[in-house]
């Protein structure tokens, strides 16, 4: 039996005419210890899917179970890392993580809890910054705190919701390597949501595209049968990676193109020449006339919207 199992889950928002179906008929099985990445367009419902699994939202239909137990609400067995870090600004790094540890392990001694906090701060290489407040940290460091906080709860599954989307390319590369290492060391089940196909290929055992909303659903899974740890160089040069990358991008482009309505529109572009504003002198006789190219463009344009 799969560790996480989603059967026919759908989710809509709004009522009556404003009802918008975001997810339709989602089916997903994740085995224990597996790293699955879901790639999709922004606005396609990726975050809604994470919210269903985390228990922050209820699905309209279908069931979501972890180890056979249906999900009824949020719980510490699922650690979440959000794109916007969601750290408490008035608490230091240590205090932010301790908040989670104290909630989840109230029966432990204070010393044991402090030891656990220190261990996870060390794991994400933040020991020198442990007494700093979030505003004193860079984006990459804040996201490390968020990862450490999620892992310190000893969750059964780690849910990563575009964790690196707000970071620059260099920091993103470093953190991708770190997430890969941490997931290998801890052997945790991970579900990563991302819009970066390369990131998915770098980290995941299986990459599943999410079609474009409304009514988004999961596409066929692409198995990445390559040893870990992987690096950028392999993704850029290995023929298997190139093939996978091309197939996933094609799938996403195709489902993006299908959703588009093509409209015919008549457009006119006047044939004006731009004026040279550096020589805009005083006008002596009447209003200056525009210069023209004598080729008014009248077009019937097909526009995808």
């Amino acid at each position, binding site marked *: 039996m799969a560790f996480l199992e989603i059967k026919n889950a759908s989710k809509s928002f709004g009522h009556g005419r404003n009802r918008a179906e975001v997810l339709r008929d989602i089916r997903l099985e994740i085995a224990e210890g597996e790293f699955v990445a879901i790639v*999709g*367009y*922004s*606005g396609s419902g990726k975050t809604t899917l994470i919210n269903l699994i985390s228990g922050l939202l209820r699905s309209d239909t279908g069931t979501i179970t972890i180890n056979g137990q249906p999900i009824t609400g949020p719980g510490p067995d699922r650690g979440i890392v959000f794109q916007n870090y969601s750290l408490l600004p008035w608490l230091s790094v240590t205090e932010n993580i301790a908040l989670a540890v104290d909630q989840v392990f109230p029966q432990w001694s204070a010393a044991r809890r402090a030891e656990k906090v220190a261990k996870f701060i060390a794991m994400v290489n933040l020991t020198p910054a442990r007494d700093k407040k979030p505003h004193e940290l860079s984006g990459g460091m804040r996201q490390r705190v968020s990862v450490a906080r999620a892992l310190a709860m000893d969750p059964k599954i780690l849910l990563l919701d575009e964790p690196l*989307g707000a970071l*620059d*390319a*260099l920091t993103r590369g470093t953190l991708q390597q770190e997430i890969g290492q941490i997931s290998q060391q801890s052997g945790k089940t991970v579900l990563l949501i991302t*819009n*970066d*196909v390369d990131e998915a290929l770098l980290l995941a055992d299986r990459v599943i595209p999410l079609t474009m909303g409304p009514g988004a659903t999961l596409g066929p899974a692409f198995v990445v049968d390559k040893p870990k740890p992987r690096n950028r*160089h392999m993704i*850029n*040069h290995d023929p298997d990676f*190139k093939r996978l990358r*091309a197939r996933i*991008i*094609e799938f*996403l*482009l195709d489902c*993006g193109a299908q959703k588009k309505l093509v*409209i015919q*529109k008549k*457009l*006119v*572009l*006047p044939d*004006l*020449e*731009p*004026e*040279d*504003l*550096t020589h*805009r002198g005083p006008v002596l006789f009447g*209003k*200056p*006339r*525009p*210069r023209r190219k004598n080729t008014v*463009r009248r077009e019937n*344009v097909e*526009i*995808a*919207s």
Partner: protein
Amino acid sequence: MSSYLEISRLNKVYPTPKGPACIVKDFDLKVRKGEFIALIGHSGCGKSTVLSMVAGLNDVTSGGIILAGKEVTGPGPDRGVVFQAPCLLPWMTALENVMLGVDNVFYTADRHERRQIAEYYLTIVGLGDSMHKRPAELSQGMRQRVGIARAFALDPKMLLLDEPFGMLDSLTRMELQEVLVDLWRRDQKTAIIVTHDVDEAVFLADRVVMMTNGPEAEVGDILEIPFEHPRNRKELLESPDYYAMRDYLITFLEERAHIRPSKLAGGPPPTNTVAFPHGDTAKKAAS
């Protein structure tokens, strides 16, 4: 053949407390009319500095830039610039944002025609239904579409794009690349794009100019991309030549970006047109 844009021996030196810092050194480039150039290099190598000097936003320390027979001495509407952030005025609608420039550059025309210009470009970039929305009501990708429409609407001689899609996710980025290349073909513009996305460079450009690491950045190598426009991304992704070019650029960034051709013994090598083994597939993929 005469070139439309000519950059010769361009230098940029900033004074610092530790003495002058030379960011760009003897940068040479000739661009033909109607050509699409991509400028790639690592962060901080001076790509944007070169672009902003062509835009006239940044003073040239020495050397010269000649566009369509005239020396560039300052900013002007004959060069349309698209930045990473679209920089729209938040209290104006998309249409009003585009009209702002159009009203100035076409001041001799009547209001009706000026409005036609703005509506034409906003529709082409896919905002036909959203031109009366303010930036706050538009997604990041739609805002950048306004930025592109605003630049093209002024009918500039040249388009300068500074990592225009850097803030967008990778899938929205591909959509906007197609919007951009479609307009570029329609209007037969000359364009330079600064990017560090290798796929973006190969998809858009006729030539990719690779810059060496700064300081004292210069042209390290030039790669011709022989695929004909309009390019079909799916066919490109299947072409072995595409991967050969992609690899060539990635290898430059990973292994050769620190080597300055002018410092090599025997002088700088001629800029390369790399021959790829599958020459005919390149033409097929372009159809």
